C-alpha cells in the first residue's frame, strides 16, 4: 500500500515528433483502456494515465523506476503499429518529480499547445484522467496532480489573458465588434458575398447574439442558401444600399474587382442612423468597401490586413501573458509538492490506525468474554476507555507525522514509525531520487 514511487511524465508532442509518428501512437479510447490495464497489470507502475491528442501522446505515471516504466509504456503503445522502443526513444522526453508536475500543469493550462491558450486541451486531459479512473489505474498521486492541474488551468484562464484574445481573423472581427458595441445581442448583421471567411465571421457574430442577419449575393440562390445556413434573411443584391442603414455590422467577402460599398452610400446610411456606429469587416481582396469609409464619423472599417495585425498583436500579447501564467503555475507546483508530501504520510497513518484498532478490538472482546455478568453499561464504558487510551497514545505520533510532512522530512518518520509499530513492510528503499 505504501507507494513511494516517483511521479513522471514521458511523452512526445508536436515539437519533438513528426505527425507521421504521432498519428501511429494516437489510439482510440478502447485501445488506451487495454494499454492502461496491461501496464498496471505488469506491476511496473503504481498509477498511470495516457493523454493522446493529435498534438501529443503522453504518459503520466507513478513508478519506482520511471525509466523502466516509460520504456514499457511506449513499447506497449508502439506495439500496435509495430514501432519498437528504440525507434521512439529519441523522440520521447521524460521528466520526473516537480518538473513533471510543472509539465502537466503547462499542458492542462494550454501553455504547451501549438496554438498558445487554445481551450480544447483541458477537456482532453480531463477525458484522459476519467478514462484512467474508470480503468482503475489512477491512484492518490494522480488524483492530487489532476485536481491541482485543473484548478491551475482555471486560474490561468481567469487571471491571465492567455486564452482570451482572438487569434483568428474571424474571432478578431467579433472582438473588434465588441470594442465598438455595448454587447452584440440584437445587433443586425449584413453579410455581403459568399466567401468562406465572411460566412465564418458572420457565424461567430451570430453565436455572440447578433441578430437579425441579412445575406446578399449576386447569385440569388447562393444568398438564399447562406441565409438558410445562418438563420437569416436573403436580400436582393440591388437592395444592398438600402439595407446598410438597417444594420450595425457589415461583413463583406465578394470577389468583386471594384469596391461595392462606397463612401457616399455609407454617409447616407449614417445619417439615417443618427449617432449609432456602423462597423465594416471587409475580408475581401480586392477590398469591397472604400477605405475612406473609415474616415467618416461613427463608421469603422477594418480590412483583412487590419484584422491580421490585430491577430498578430494578440498572439504577441498571449506570449507575454504566458510568462505570467508560467509564474503562476510554478507557485501551483510548490502547493502540489506540499500536497504530495502530505499524501506520503497518509498510508502510514492509515495502517497505524488500522493496526492499533485490530489490537484494541481483540483485547476488548477478550476482556468482555471474561466478564459474563457484564451488562450493556459495562461494555460501553470499556469501549470508551479503550478508545480513549488509543487516541491519547496515537495523538503525538500523528501530529509528528503531519508536521514532518509539512517540513519535508516525512520519509524518516514514516520509516521510523513503521519500524516501531511493526507495520506492513518497510517503505521501499531508493525509490524517490
Amino acid at each position, binding site marked *: 500500500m505504501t507507494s513511494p514511487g516517483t511521479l513522471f511524465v514521458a511523452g512526445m508532442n508536436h515539437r519533438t515528433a513528426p505527425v507521421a509518428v504521432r498519428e501511429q501512437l494516437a489510439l482510440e479510447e478502447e485501445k488506451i483502456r487495454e494499454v492502461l490495464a496491461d501496464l498496471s497489470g505488469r506491476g511496473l507502475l503504481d498509477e498511470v494515465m495516457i493523454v493522446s491528442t493529435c498534438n501529443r501522446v503522453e504518459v503520466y505515471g507513478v513508478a519506482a523506476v520511471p525509466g523502466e516504466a516509460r520504456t514499457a509504456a511506449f513499447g506497449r503503445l508502439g506495439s500496435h503499429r509495430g514501432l519498437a522502443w528504440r525507434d521512439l526513444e529519441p523522440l520521447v522526453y521524460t521528466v520526473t518529480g516537480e518538473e513533471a508536475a510543472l509539465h502537466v500543469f503547462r499542458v492542462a493550462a494550454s501553455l504547451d499547445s501549438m496554438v498558445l491558450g487554445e481551450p480544447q486541451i483541458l477537456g482532453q486531459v480531463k477525458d484522459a484522467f476519467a478514462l484512467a479512473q474508470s480503468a482503475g489505474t489512477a491512484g492518490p498521486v494522480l488524483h492530487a496532480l489532476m485536481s491541482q492541474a485543473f484548478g491551475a488551468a482555471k486560474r490561468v484562464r481567469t487571471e491571465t489573458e492567455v486564452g482570451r*484574445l482572438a487569434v483568428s481573423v474571424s474571432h478578431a472581427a467579433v472582438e473588434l465588434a465588441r*470594442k465598438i*458595441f*455595448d454587447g452584440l445581442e440584437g445587433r443586425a448583421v449584413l453579410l455581403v458575398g459568399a466567401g468562406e471567411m465572411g460566412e465564418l465571421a458572420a457565424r461567430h457574430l451570430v453565436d455572440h447574439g447578433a441578430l437579425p442577419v441579412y445575406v446578399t449575393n449576386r447569385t440569388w440562390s447562393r444568398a438564399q442558401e447562406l441565409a438558410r445556413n445562418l438563420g437569416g434573411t436573403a436580400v436582393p443584391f440591388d437592395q444592398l444600399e438600402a439595407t446598410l442603414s438597417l444594420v450595425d455590422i457589415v461583413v463583406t467577402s465578394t470577389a468583386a474587382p471594384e469596391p461595392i460599398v462606397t463612401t457616399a452610400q455609407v454617409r447616407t446610411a449614417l445619417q439615417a442612423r443618427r*449617432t*449609432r*456606429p456602423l462597423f465594416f469587416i471587409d475580408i475581401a481582396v480586392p477590398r469591397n468597401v472604400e477605405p475612406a469609409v473609415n*474616415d467618416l*464619423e461613427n463608421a469603422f472599417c477594418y480590412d483583412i490586413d487590419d484584422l491580421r495585425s490585430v491577430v498578430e498583436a494578440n498572439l504577441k500579447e498571449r506570449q507575454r501573458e504566458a510568462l505570467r501564467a508560467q509564474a503562476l503555475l510554478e507557485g501551483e507546483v510548490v502547493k502540489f509538492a506540499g500536497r504530495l508530501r502530505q499524501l506520503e504520510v497518509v498510508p502510514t497513518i492509515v495502517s497505524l490506525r488500522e493496526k492499533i484498532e485490530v489490537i484494541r478490538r481483540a483485547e476488548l472482546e477478550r476482556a468482555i468474554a471474561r466478564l459474563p455478568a457484564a451488562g450493556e453499561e459495562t461494555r460501553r464504558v470499556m469501549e470508551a476507555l479503550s478508545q480513549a487510551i488509543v487516541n491519547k497514545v496515537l495523538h503525538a505520533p500523528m501530529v509528528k507525522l503531519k508536521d514532518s510532512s509539512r517540513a519535508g522530512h516525512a520519509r524518516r518518520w514514516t520509516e521510523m514509525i513503521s519500524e516501531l509499530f511493526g507495520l506492513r513492510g518497510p517503505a521501499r528503499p531508493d525509490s524517490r531520487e
Partner: protein
Amino acid sequence: MNAVLYDVALTAYILAAAAAIGSLVGRRDQLAWVALLLTQAGWICHTAAVITRGVELGRLPFMTMAEVISLVIWAAILLDFWIERRSRIRPLSAFVLPVILALGLGLPTGLRSIALETPVRSGWIVVHVALVLVGLAALVLNFGIALMYLLRERQLKAKRTGAFYRHLPPLETLDRLTVGTLTIGFPFLTVGLALGVLSAPAAWGSLLTFDPLALFSLVMWLIYTATLLGRVMGQWGGRRAAYFAIAGFCVLLATLGAGAFLHGRHGS
C-alpha cells in the same frame, strides 16, 4: 483636525490615481484593486473631514469656495463608485481621479484658512450651492468619460492595439455614459444656477453687478445646454458630444478658478 483628515484623504487619492494609471498602462489587475481600496479609504477619510469641519466651525461645510470644491470631489468620487459598480467599467478611476486631483490639489491651503469670514447666507443660497455642487460632480465624471471615449474612438480609427485596446470599455458604453452623466448633472446645475440668479438681488442688492463666477457659470451652462440640445436633435453624438463635454469642463474649471482666485460677489 479636519485639515489633517483632508491631507490624508488627498494623499490616498493621489496614490490611488497612480495605482489606477499603473494598472491601465501596466495591465496589472492587482493594482486596480489597490486603487479601488485606496480610493475607498480616501473617501471615508474625506467624509470624516467634511463632518469634523462642519462640527468644528459650527456651520454647514460648503460655504467657501475651497469647501465647495472639496464637496464636488467628494460627490464625484461617490458617483464614480456607483458608475463603476453598475457598468463594470474598471479603468474609469484612472481617468476620473487625475481630474479630481487637478481640482483638489489647491485645497489644503484653502481649507486651513478657517478664519474666512462667511456672510450670513439665506436658506435659498444653501440650496443653490448644494444643487450646483451635485451638478458639478456629475460633470466631472462626464469629462472623464468623454476623455475615455475620445481615446477609444481614436484607437479604433487608427487600428492600434495596446493597453487601451484591451482595457477601455466599448465605444457605445462610453457614449451612453457621457449622455447619462450629463443628464444627471444638467437639471441640478440648471435649477441650482437659477436659484442663484433669483436670490442674487436679495444677497447683493442688484442682479447686474459684475461677478466673474456668475459670468463663467452662464457660459458653462450654455455649452452644456447646447450639448444636450444637439443630442436630443439626434445629430451630436459620439465624438462631437465628447468634444463639447471637454469644452464645457474647461469652462467649469475656469469658473471654479474664478471663484477661488478672482474677487467677486462669491468671495474668495
